């Protein structure tokens, strides 16, 4: 160790912060070095004197007044810094809350929001499931052809017995419109209320007349008040070439319902016609009578669409000829003035070269009609057969007299001479019970009897009310 080292390590030696080994080296050097020894002794003496002075006479107590001031200040500060919990609360006026804060605190906000959410969800679900139909879309839907479910369902025997077989004619547009009108009436009739509204019946008759008028000759259509509807429906019908019915040798103009029937619309058209007739009967039937056949088209009694029935066997063109005379005769009394009605029926009856007026024969009846036992052919088929077979004049005269009797009966029925019409049709039935039109005649008889009963009941009611008025 050198003297310079002793000088630098002197403080550590005096304050005893030197390791033992280094301390031994330090002391060894100091013992051997007189200069370092004097230096170390002088510094040790100075430090000893300084400590003695600082911890002896220089060790003074602070003035007591300082402590008093400090404690007073501390007490004042402690009093000023009382915990907040001990401080009296100063009531402050609450700040005015904003609109949304007050709205949020209202008790009805959450229920109202919930109800609004539910209503919105329900509305959206309904809109998604049933999107609104625009007017142009609605018309497009109306013009669409009948759905497949509109294929006629198998006709029950009871329905056949009640509902007359309508004409196997149909135009797509007319069929749809007739379906719409009849379906509406059917739905209403299913709903329960008594269907006696003249408006509903008139609407249905108008649709049926329009359909039947398609089978009329053009000149009849020109005079028919419903010809406009028929022409419109004819315009919607697919244009086709003139078609001659099998065995008739007669041409049917394009757009004629007969052509459509041949083009494959016969089953549906026949079904529609049958339904329309049945609905008409249901409308005019008293409420007490059970409704038969009042089922939506293509649907079963439960309202579901029925399986498409097997197609009807192809009807002979002559047999498939409609019976619009009966339809017109049945509807004319309700729709047309008596004079016009009579004129239309007479004009129709004069059209003996047309198939109008021939009822549809059932398959059994058709088979029977093709047999030689058929004694009283009438209408278009009779004329055609007569011209083809070149019958004798006496036979033709007999046939003509039979046709005249038929026309007379139809005329009486159209003129609402119910008793006479019923008697005429009964006579025809007695003479030719196997005639293809016999079923229609029977219905005429039933309708005439029913009308008689209703008229009788109305008269009785009127008499009762008059008596009551007189009694008052």
């Amino acid at each position, binding site marked *: 160790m050198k003297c310079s080292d002793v000088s630098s390590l002197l403080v550590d030696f005096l304050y005893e912060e030197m390791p033992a080994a280094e301390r031994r080296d330090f002391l060894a050097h100091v013992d051997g070095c007189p200069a370092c020894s004097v230096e170390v002794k002088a510094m040790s003496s100075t430090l000893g004197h*300084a400590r003695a002075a600082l911890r002896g006479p*220089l060790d*003074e107590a602070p*003035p007591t007044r300082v402590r008093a001031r400090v*404690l007073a200040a501390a*007490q004042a500060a*402690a009093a000023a810094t009382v915990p907040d919990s001990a401080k009296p609360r100063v009531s402050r006026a609450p700040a005015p809350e904003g609109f949304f804060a007050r709205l949020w605190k209202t008790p009805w906000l959450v229920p109202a929001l919930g109800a609004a959410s539910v209503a919105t969800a329900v509305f959206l679900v309904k809109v998604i499931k049933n999107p609104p139909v625009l007017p142009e879309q609605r018309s497009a839907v109306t013009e669409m052809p009948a759905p497949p479910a509109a294929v006629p369902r198998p006709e029950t025997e009871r329905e056949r017995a009640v509902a007359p077989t309508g004409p196997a004619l149909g135009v797509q547009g007319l069929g749809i419109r007739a379906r719409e009108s009849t379906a509406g009436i059917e739905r209403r009739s299913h709903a329960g209320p008594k269907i006696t509204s003249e408006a509903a019946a008139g609407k249905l008759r108008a649709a049926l007349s329009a359909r039947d008028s398609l089978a009329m000759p053009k000149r009849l259509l020109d005079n028919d008040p419903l010809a406009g509807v028929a022409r419109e429906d004819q315009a919607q019908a697919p244009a086709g070439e003139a078609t001659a019915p099998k065995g008739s040798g007669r041409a049917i103009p394009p757009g004629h319902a007969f052509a459509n029937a041949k083009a494959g619309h016969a089953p549906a058209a026949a079904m529609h016609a049958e339904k329309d007739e049945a609905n008409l009967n249901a409308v005019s039937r008293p409420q007490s009578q059970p409704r038969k056949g009042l089922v939506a088209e293509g649907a079963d009694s439960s309202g579901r669409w029925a399986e498409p029935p097997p197609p009807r066997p192809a009807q002979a063109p002559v047999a498939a000829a409609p019976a619009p005379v009966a339809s017109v005769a049945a509807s004319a009394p309700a729709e047309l003035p008596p004079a016009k009605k009579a004129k239309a029926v007479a004009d129709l009856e004069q059209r003996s070269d047309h198939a109008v007026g021939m009822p549809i024969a059932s398959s059994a009846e058709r088979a029977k009609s093709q047999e030689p036992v058929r004694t009283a052919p009438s209408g278009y088929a009779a004329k055609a057969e007569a011209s083809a077979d070149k019958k004798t004049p006496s036979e033709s005269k007999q046939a003509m007299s039979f046709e005249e009797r038929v026309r007379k009966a139809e005329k009486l029925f159209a003129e609402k001479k119910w008793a006479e019409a019923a008697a005429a049709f009964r006579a025809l039935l007695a003479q030719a019970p196997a005639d293809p039109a016999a079923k229609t005649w029977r219905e005429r008889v039933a309708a005439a009897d029913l009308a008689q009963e209703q008229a009788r009941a109305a008269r009785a009611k009127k008499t009762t009310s008059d008596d009551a008025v007189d009694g008052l």
Partner: protein
Amino acid sequence: MAAYQKGDVAAFGELVARHEKRLWNFLRRFVRDKATAEDLLQEVFLRVVKSAVQWQPSAKVSTWLFTIARNLCTDQARRAEFRQAESLDQAKAGEEGSGLRRIDRVAANSGDAEKEAMGREIASLVDRAVDELPLEQREVFLMREVMDMSFAEIAAQVGASEPTVKSRMRYALQRLRSSLGELHEATARDAASVEGTP
């Protein structure tokens, strides 16, 4: 200190009693003036009162107190440098007011009285020698001898390394030795002159 934070003034009184003497001696030796030291001591405790809510239990109260005292002393010493002449006058006045007279130093002949007189003389010399120390050496010397702080604590307090603090301590001791040596020589000359008189 934690008790005083909760409003216990008596606890703060105990804290003052525990630390005021060392703080007073430190301030008294550091600022050289008794009235100034008294003001500074009061200021130290008032600052503690003001900052009591900010005190954290992890902090050492003595270190916090001496840090405040040192900062106050440093500010006071810097202000005193602008009034050097006045300080010199105060030092001269202090010397006069200390009551340390040479006649008092040699008046007593008894052993106890001589020791007591020697003690007063040495205390006065030490007091003056400490006052004449440079600021950096003085604070290190007082922190070590009055505050009983280790060199490591002093180094942390003054923001210097430990060897630097030891070096400052060594220079302070050399200055004190020098001052006390002159005192011893003077005392020896006074004693020889008294003995040589008939």
